C-alpha cells in the first residue's frame, strides 16, 4: 500500500486541481471554445501543484520515508512526478503560442520578455527550469555541479509562483482556486528554501 502512496497523492492532487479549474469557469462551453488554451491552463495548474509536491519530497523528512515505504520510493516518486511536472510546465506557453499563432506578436509574448511583468516572471522561471534540465539531462556533469543545477529548480518555482499569482487568469478570478494554488506555492517555496539553506546545515 505504501508503495502506491505517491500515486494516490498525485491522483488526489490532480483530481482536486482539475475540479477547481472546471468550477472556475462560468460555463463549460468556454473550455471547448478554445481547447488549446484550456489544456495549457490545466497543464500549468498541475505543473505548479506537482512541482510543489516534488519540492516537499526533496526535503527528505523522515515522515516522508515512513509514508512512502522507504527513501528509495520517495526518490522514485520525486523523479517521475518532477519530470511530468516539468513537461507540463514546458507545454504551457507552447500551447498558448499555438492558440495565438495567427497573431505572431501575441505568440512572442509567451516566449520572450515584454512589458507584461506577470508574464516575464513566468518566462524567466521557465528558462531557469530549462537551463537546469539541460544541465542535468544533456550534459555529463560531476555530482556537485549536477546538484547545483538541480537546485536552480527552487528559485525557478518561486518565479513561476509569482507569475501564477500575478497573471490575469482563473487563479486571480476564482477565490477557491487562488487559495488552493497559493497554498501549494507557499508550501513549495518553503520546502525549496529549506532544502537550499537549512537542510545542508543540519545534515
Amino acid at each position: 500500500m505504501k508503495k502506491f502512496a505517491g500515486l494516490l497523492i498525485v491522483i488526489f492532487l490532480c483530481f482536486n486541481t482539475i475540479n477547481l479549474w472546471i468550477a472556475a469557469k462560468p460555463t463549460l462551453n468556454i473550455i471547448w471554445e478554445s481547447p488549446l488554451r484550456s489544456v495549457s491552463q490545466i497543464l500549468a495548474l498541475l505543473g505548479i501543484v506537482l512541482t510543489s509536491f516534488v519540492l516537499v519530497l526533496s526535503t527528505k523528512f523522515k515522515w516522508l520515508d515512513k509514508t512512502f515505504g522507504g527513501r528509495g520510493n520517495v526518490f522514485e516518486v520525486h523523479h517521475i512526478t518532477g519530470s511530468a511536472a516539468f513537461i507540463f510546465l514546458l507545454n504551457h506557453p507552447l500551447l498558448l503560442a499555438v492558440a495565438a499563432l495567427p497573431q505572431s506578436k501575441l505568440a512572442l509574448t509567451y516566449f520572450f520578455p515584454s512589458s507584461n511583468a506577470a508574464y516575464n516572471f513566468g518566462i524567466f522561471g521557465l528558462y531557469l527550469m530549462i537551463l537546469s534540465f539541460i544541465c542535468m539531462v544533456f550534459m555529463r556533469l560531476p555530482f556537485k555541479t549536477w546538484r547545483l543545477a538541480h537546485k536552480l529548480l527552487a528559485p525557478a518555482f518561486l518565479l513561476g509562483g509569482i507569475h501564477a499569482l500575478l497573471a490575469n487568469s482563473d487563479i486571480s478570478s476564482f477565490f477557491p482556486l487562488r487559495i488552493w494554488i497559493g497554498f501549494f506555492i507557499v508550501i513549495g517555496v518553503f520546502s525549496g528554501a529549506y532544502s537550499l539553506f537549512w537542510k545542508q546545515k543540519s545534515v
Partner: protein
Amino acid sequence: MKRFITFIIRLSILNFIFYMLAVFFVAKYNEISVKRGIQKEDIPVSPGPTFSSPTKQASGSVSLFSQLQNHNSRSDCWIAYSGHIYDITSFFGSHPGGDGIMLKYCGQDATAAFDTKDKFPPSPHSENAKSLLQQYLVQ
C-alpha cells in the same frame, strides 16, 4: 523507465526550443512583410474619425461608426477604441482574459474597458497589447 523519462524530457526541451525559434522567425517575417507592404503602397495609416464624428467624413468616404452596432457577435465583432474601429473577430480564442470579456463589448465603444480592463482600481493594458490592437485597425 529512467531512460524513457530522460528521452521524453530531451524531446520536450528540443521541441520547445524549435517551436520558440519558429514563432520568433514567423513574427519577424510578418514584421518585414508589413513594412515592405507599406513601402510599396506608400499609403500612411490615417487616423480615423473620433467617435462623435459625423457618419459622412470630409473626404466623402462613409464612416464605419454607423455600422459598428451591427458587428456585435463572436463571429463578427467590431469595437471602437479611442476614435478608431477595430475588427477583433480573429482575436477570439487568444485573449489572455478569455473571450467573454471581449464579447461584452462587440459593437460598442470599448475605450474605457480597454484602458481599465474593467477593473477597479484601473489596470491599463500594456504597450504590447496596444500595438497588438493596431493589427486589427479598420478605420
